[in-house]
């Protein structure tokens, strides 16, 4: 299985500046690709395009040669940088995991999620604790590609290491494709099999 961006261009709004220009990248299953580059070079935008959150202005996003599914469960999942925005503030944490049917003891244990957190509201947990839930929510059975958009930037180093260990282990065992969007070149080198520098391939 291959996730592919073919000659995509993108700009925000009709008259906006071009963020991505005729960009092509691909990720195969089992591969871990890092996307690095300075701020404003379209890393997060590319992540949203690849996950189907935004439609490209031109070009196409293909999963196994076909466009991403419009409806239903998407096999490409995105983890945001700010977990507190990615969780409904009026839901208890149990509901968050139930939404993707990824509430199982094994996953909770791996990610270090304590049982008592499940009955809490998001504002009663810290950023690192919330991000564990976001990771657990994205790692349901149907996920084939996981895009981590600055997933660990906000977290302390111990939590970072914990989360990455779980994600790498899962990617390995499921032969899942992983896209790591980060401005931290060291992290990309450490966890990825291949690193793409957006500033060299995105000519804007």
């Amino acid at each position, binding site marked *: 299985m291959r996730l592919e961006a073919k000659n995509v261009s993108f700009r925000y709004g009709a008259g906006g500046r071009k963020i991505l220009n005729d960009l092509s990248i691909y990720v195969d299953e089992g591969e871990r690709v890092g996307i690095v580059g300075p701020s404003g070079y379209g890393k997060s935008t590319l992540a949203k395009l690849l996950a189907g959150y935004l439609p490209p202005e031109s070009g196409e996003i293909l999963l196994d040669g076909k466009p991403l599914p419009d*409806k239903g469960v*998407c096999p490409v*999942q*995105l983890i945001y940088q700010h977990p507190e925005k*990615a969780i409904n503030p*009026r839901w208890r944490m149990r509901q968050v995991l139930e939404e993707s049917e990824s509430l199982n003891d094994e996953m909770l244990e791996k990610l270090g999620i304590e049982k008592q957190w499940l009955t809490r509201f998001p504002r009663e947990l810290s950023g690192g604790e919330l991000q564990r839930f976001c990771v657990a*929510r994205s790692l349901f059975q149907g996920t084939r590609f996981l895009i981590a958009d600055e997933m660990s930037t906000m977290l302390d180093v111990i939590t970072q290491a914990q989360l990455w260990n779980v994600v790498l282990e899962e990617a390995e065992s499921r032969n899942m494709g992983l896209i790591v969007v980060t401005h931290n070149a060291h992290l990309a080198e450490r966890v990825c099999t291949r690193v793409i520098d957006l500033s060299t391939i995105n000519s804007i």
Partner: protein
Amino acid sequence: MNELTIRRNKAGQNIKETRRKKMNRRTKTVILTVLIAAVIVSALLAGLLISDEAVAIDFANAKQKPSFEHPFGTDWMGRDLFARTMKGLSISITVGVVASAISAVAAVLIGIAAATGSKALDSFVNWLIDLVMGVPHLVLIILISFSCGRGLKGLLIGIAVTHWTSLARLIRAEVLQLRSEQYIAVSRKLGKSNRWILVKHILPHMIPQFVVGLILMFPHAILHEASVSFLGYGLPPEQPAIGIILSESMKYLSSGMWWLAFFPGLTLVLIVILLDHLGDNLKMLIDPYSAQE
């Protein structure tokens, strides 16, 4: 208590007095809620329990000033004004509850439809809101009530049709903002349908707006009912609604029967003020940011 026994804090303020001043909003709201619930229940019960005999015509007791036997006095036909006021209140409250409930539910439905539907529907709803808001409520209610052939039905429709606008606009804006939230986008990618997202993600966020909107609509509805009835376009004169009582009392004010207008008017104003306070307090508790605007 002499000066020595008054306990003072560091700033020299009387501790007992500051404590009394600092009853917080939560406590106040709870007290208000209990008070209003008691008033509403007793008015409704009174409306049911007070027999027609109590408000029967009795010329022997006509034009009496307030006394222990007749706390609000009696009118020119000897009817006990207290019983009549309570009956009137129960009618007003029923009208208020029904009309504002219809209005609030309509507001939520219309607001959500405008925010999630097509662009044309959204513009139409906005145009409709501007239209209804542009015409003075009283005029619109009178027109609708009149064309429905006076009486309870016309009044209810009139009040329900005119009061949904501001809440609908609020709900529309809220839903539009919610729809752009990340967790909604995530939910969509987890394969959830629009309907599922509406019910599970968006509707629970509307509950506070709905409750506050409903409670703030309530006093408006009561006042409009009373004023339309007062002007003679609402309830028929046989029904002792507050508006009717006030309107009838006008003829007798100049002959010194002040109690005919004073007590019914006072109870109406008190209930409206209580409800308005409750609504404002709830708004502050539930949504402190927008309440400050």
